[in-house]
């Protein structure tokens, strides 16, 4: 039993990191990725925690202190509208502005004919991705930034000044938040750094999903070259804020079957992700595969990675199949359906947690969490049931 907060933190950090290395800690760690749930629990609206990140921090710490959680994301409501409104970002629907105050922020992909990169612009992007982002992409995604060659404006100048300073202020505030999580709650900040796959970036922010899948058929060499051009930048960014204690978050979107076919996964997605993960691991960093949706068709590919190089998070996949196929190599997390947390009973949640622990966690290498990011539809009593059941059935 920990005597003080620092001991509690050390105990939880050891529990969390042991499980992530696929080892057997003293008990199954609880690491829920709670986003807008924190707002409803702390008495805030989604608008309040999205617009005022100090409230988001307070809400995250309140949950961490009140529930017996080993690790949480410092602020899973990661989009701060102070920053996105300074830049004039077009693609977000912000709670309280474009959508009701109690709806979580939304990403709005533009129609295919208004994609942020045109099909004939691949070569320009491949030649200089960073220049393309500043000169072509940013003026298209921002209401304020003017295109190169066009007259500058007050809005344009303010966008860079306010955007830069706001981003610096926001990122710097995470140091204090992580320290308060440690000293007030004894809770570990669960991840550090960000990674996304080249193919997902092209779909999410450049060509749109429909544009990408057309390009995979009509100009596959350009798509591959663009993925390869992105690779060194995405690795550099992943490592720029990484920690050797906790993994880099890898947010997996639409690179799996059936969003793309198996041939596209094997020839485009995986060859432009695997070398990055291997390189990151060789430098001493782990990556958390946050496999949103169902990536079960690709487990054999993931098994090619070095033992313990990743933590694999299960959303809609079959967690028992995942454990059977890759559990001997990697720690697994998640698997408790979000629908159960929002519409089930506490007993149903307890039964689900017990089944997962008995089927997946017997040899260690498992972290309790919901399937997907937990929003404000989850019931407090069900979150408590998930935590309590893990503490009851998850002792080694």
């Amino acid at each position: 039993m920990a005597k003080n907060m620092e001991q509690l933190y050390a105990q939880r950090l050891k529990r969390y990191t042991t499980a992530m290395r696929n080892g057997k800690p003293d008990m199954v760690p609880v690491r829920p990725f709670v986003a807008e749930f924190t707002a409803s629990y702390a008495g805030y609206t989604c608008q309040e925690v999205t617009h005022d990140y100090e409230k988001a921090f307070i809400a995250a710490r309140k949950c961490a202190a009140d529930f017996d959680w080993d690790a949480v994301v410092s602020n899973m409501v990661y989009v701060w509208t102070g920053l996105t409104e300074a830049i004039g970002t077009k693609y977000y629907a912000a709670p309280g502005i474009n959508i009701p105050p109690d709806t979580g922020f939304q990403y709005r992909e533009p129609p295919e004919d208004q994609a942020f990169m045109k099909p004939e612009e691949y070569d320009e992007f491949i030649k200089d991705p960073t220049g393309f982002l500043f000169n072509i992409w940013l003026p298209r995604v921002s209401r304020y930034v003017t295109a190169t060659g066009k007259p500058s404006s007050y809005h344009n100048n303010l966008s860079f000044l306010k955007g830069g300073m706001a981003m610096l202020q926001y990122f710097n505030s995470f140091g204090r938040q992580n320290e308060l999580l440690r000293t007030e709650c004894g809770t570990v900040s669960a991840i550090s750094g960000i990674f996304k796959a080249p193919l997902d970036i092209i779909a999410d922010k450049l060509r749109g999903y429909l544009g990408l899948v057309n390009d995979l058929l009509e100009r596959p060499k350009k798509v591959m070259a663009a993925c390869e051009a992105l690779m060194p930048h995405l690795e550099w960014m992943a490592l720029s804020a990484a920690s050797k204690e906790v993994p880099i978050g890898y947010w997996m979107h639409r690179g799996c079957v059936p969003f793309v076919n198996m041939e596209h996964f094997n020839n485009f997605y995986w060859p432009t992700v695997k070398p990055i993960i291997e390189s990151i691991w060789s430098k001493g960093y782990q990556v958390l595969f946050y496999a949103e949706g169902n990536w079960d068709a690709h487990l054999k590919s993931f098994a090619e990675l070095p033992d313990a190089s990743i933590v694999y998070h299960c959303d809609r996949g079959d967690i028992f199949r995942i454990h059977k196929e890759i559990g001997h190599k990697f720690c697994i997390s998640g698997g408790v359906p979000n629908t159960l947390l929002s519409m089930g009973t506490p007993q149903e949640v307890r039964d689900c947690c017990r089944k997962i622990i008995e089927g997946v966690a017997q040899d260690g290498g498992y972290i309790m969490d919901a399937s997907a990011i937990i929003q404000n539809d989850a019931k407090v009593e069900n979150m408590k049931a998930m935590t309590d059941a893990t503490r009851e059935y998850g002792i080694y």
Partner: protein
Amino acid sequence: MVNRSESAKKPGVCFPWEEKLKEFSEIKGDKELVKKIWEDVDSLAYVYIWHCLLSF
């Protein structure tokens, strides 16, 4: 702002030191110090645009 006709830049770089260096007729003191500080601040701009793409 960097002209888009310039050649590809390495990760962490928006405006390469080699280009910046052309602005100076000479550097009378510690050239490496000037280079390091230029590159440190330049990487902040890099982090800004890539986080716009990746995180926001």
